[in-house]
């Protein structure tokens, strides 16, 4: 397999790089200065692309690589991969489902607690020495607050289970009502927001879910409500979010994802009622290694003619 060209789109895990290098002819796309020259040189040797949530395989790349057989993504979401084009050309696509479900759900609960109990602000307060001269303000209780989840898939369900242990009533919105879950279903996101203290975005990004959290939803959530986004940046109308937060129409927001990563609206930097993370939903050593193993496992299975571990297309 050492002759097989594997194009890695951006740095994502040094462990993954090592594992790929051991097995394949690893080409690091981010290290070459002239992308078009690079693609021209390697167009006949590249048979696999490894992408992630920020860099995948768009239509242009797919048409530039005539020998491409498989796109193995180091992510759950596949919004950076042109799935239609892949299907059309018979290119296989894999992702890394399940392994990061727990991490994302853990982070969602961590963000809720960080936001309501103002843990980041507490930490800044102590580090700045202000505690010596005054009392910290009261924070907001989490236990018992109603949690509304957009998208009750694997991650949404894992969040619901965790929030249940905090005695939180769970509401959800999804395309279809799910029987046997025991949570309250709302047929629109606005109704879900109206009836929840905490709104968590946990659905995949599609054309239908782009800006699913718009101004109307933010206003329905209200000045005491908080928004948690561990999905994708474009789920939320970011400009409206900044306005709602700065005008006090929304209680707070904890965001792991943004519309133009790694760019974050600077208006948010001065706010105490936001928590801002650099897209680390699956950012743990354990999970990144498990994801890397899946990426490598899918490529090995494909090139040795076995069935894929986690196929999407």
């Amino acid at each position, binding site marked *: 397999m050492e002759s097989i060209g594997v194009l890695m789109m951006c*740095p994502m895990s040094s462990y993954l790089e090592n594992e790929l290098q051991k097995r394949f002819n690893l080409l690091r796309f981010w290290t070459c200065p002239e992308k078009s020259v690079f693609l021209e040189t390697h167009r006949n040797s590249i048979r696999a692309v490894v992408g992630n949530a920020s860099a995948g395989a768009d239509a242009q790349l797919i048409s530039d690589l005539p020998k491409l057989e498989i796109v193995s993504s180091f992510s759950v979401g596949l919004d950076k991969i042109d799935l239609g084009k892949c299907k059309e050309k018979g290119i296989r696509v894999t992702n890394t489902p399940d392994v990061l479900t*727990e*991490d994302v*759900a*853990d*982070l969602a*609960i*961590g*963000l809720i*607690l*960080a936001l309501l*109990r*103002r*843990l*980041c602000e*507490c*930490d*800044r*307060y*102590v*580090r700045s020495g202000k*505690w*010596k001269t005054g*009392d*910290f*303000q*009261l*924070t*907001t*209780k*989490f*236990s*018992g607050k109603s949690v509304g989840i957009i998208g009750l898939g694997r991650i949404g369900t894992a969040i619901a*289970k*965790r929030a*249940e*242990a*905090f*005695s939180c009533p769970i509401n959800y919105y999804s395309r279809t009502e799910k029987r046997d879950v025991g949570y309250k279903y709302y047929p629109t996101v606005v109704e879900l927001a109206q009836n929840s203290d905490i709104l968590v975005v946990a659905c995949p990004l599609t054309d239908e879910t782009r800006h699913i959290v718009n101004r109307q939803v933010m206003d329905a959530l209200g000045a005491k409500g908080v928004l948690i986004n561990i999905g994708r940046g474009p789920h939320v109308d970011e400009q409206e979010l900044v306005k709602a937060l700065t005008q006090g129409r929304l209680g707070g927001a904890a965001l792991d994802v943004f519309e133009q*990563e*790694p*760019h*974050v609206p600077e208006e948010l*930097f001065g706010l105490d009622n936001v*928590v*801002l*993370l*650099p897209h*680390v939903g699956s*950012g*743990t*050593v*354990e*999970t*990144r290694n498990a994801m890397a193993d899946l990426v490598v496992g899918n490529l090995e299975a494909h090139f040795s003619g076995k069935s894929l571990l986690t196929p999407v297309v």
Partner: protein
Amino acid sequence: MDFASSSLFNVNFAYEDELDFSCLISPSTFISFQEPNPSNPIIHCAGTENDGRQRIRETTMTDEITKENVEPKNKRAKHREIERQRRQEVTSLFQNLRNILPFHYIKGKRSSSDHVQEAVNYIKDLQKKIKEVSEKRDRIKRSITHPSSTGECPIRSSASSYCSCVGDTHIDVKRVLIKRVKRLLLNNSRLRLEEVSMAESSAPPLILVHRPPSLDYLDERLSRHFQILNTHASSPDPLPVFLSRHASSIRAFVNIGRLPIDAELLSHLPSLQLLVCTSVGTDHVDLAECKRLGIAVTNAGDAFSEDVADCAVGLLINVLRRIPAADRFVRSGNWAKSRDFQLGTKVSGKRVGIVGLGSIGSLIAKRLEPFRCIISYNSRSHKPSIPYRYYPDILSLAANNDVLVLCCALTDQTRQIVNREVMESLGKGGVIINVGRGGLIDEKEMVKCLVEGVIGGAGLDVFGNEPEVPEELFGLDNVVLSPHAAVATPGSLDNVTEVALANLKAFFSNQPLISPVRLD
């Protein structure tokens, strides 16, 4: 020692003309003190140079000899016995006098006769003071209410406990006015507040409240049911002075915050029977002294448990997933510069050892179960009904876990329970979460262990010497620091207000307390 601080002379104005000091002397010896009068034999003997006891004895003997002339001789022995008892009682009376007289009355006085003389002087002084004070009180009362005020106004409402009527005009004297009267009286006469309170009919019980200026959340609820003597609002005096001046008959004391309650402070509250603490931990209270004095102590019970458990889990996730460090990373613009952020550690599936599986510890365990965390614990005793693994010592608990959560009470047994050895056995990936008390950890060693990488991180809501925090921690990304805020949500404050109120109500109606602290 001034008049107001003597708790023994608890004088009710209604009886100010007949001072009854019977409580001061042993029950068998009832002596009614009277105005000095040359014809009074006691005063006469007290005025002589000789030993008062001797003179009293002689006076009594004279009476008996007179009787003896008409009584049979075999009664002499009986009389001698009676006389012996009387002498004993008189001795004990003088002893009592010495104890109760303020020092400047007995200073330099040796003989019992001097003591009796000084006692008389003291009583005269007291009566004079009482007369002055009551005149002053009446003057002030007259200046704000009509003298005909007897509370018989038909439209007097329950909301206004005082009413003054001028002719047919109803004047509603609000409680605010009464408060002003009280303050005037207090300022002018150094009277104890509870004495003034007696003037109010059917007044709610008086309780003492001490709190930091900012913690006013209980005031409103408490004042609906009790009269509050607030140490913070009422007086610029140092606390011991304030207490001995105004709080000597206080039976219930609500201590909001962390004011240390030691033997010295308790000595200023001789009537205290109930100490209501608004914290879960009572390490700031000398429980042994409370037990000795028969003072019941209550704490916050379960009022804070959910919030503290939430905070513990929040700190745990925030340390492992490096959330505050990540937030700093984004806000500083480092992400936009495409710098890498160091990966965090997975929470789900971690082994979590809980030190102290009480109400808070159990709620932490319950919250961590859906995270697939493997829970084990160490506490004073093994709880067989609980499915979690029990480790009899903290060292083996630390050795078998990734995270150690401290949520036990700080006692002599748990002080610095987490020492260097425990941290070494927790290991370099290990994390400590402390929502108990700072004193549970050897803080100096913990700082070293964090800096040297002996342990992996820490989430700390409490510190050894709050609000001081070791500055070495400020530069570390693997710690999350919180200003003892685990309980500080409006929900918790509502809860603790309910618990404090319920304990006070139970106390004043002789019902069992809601959240008593074990005094052993």
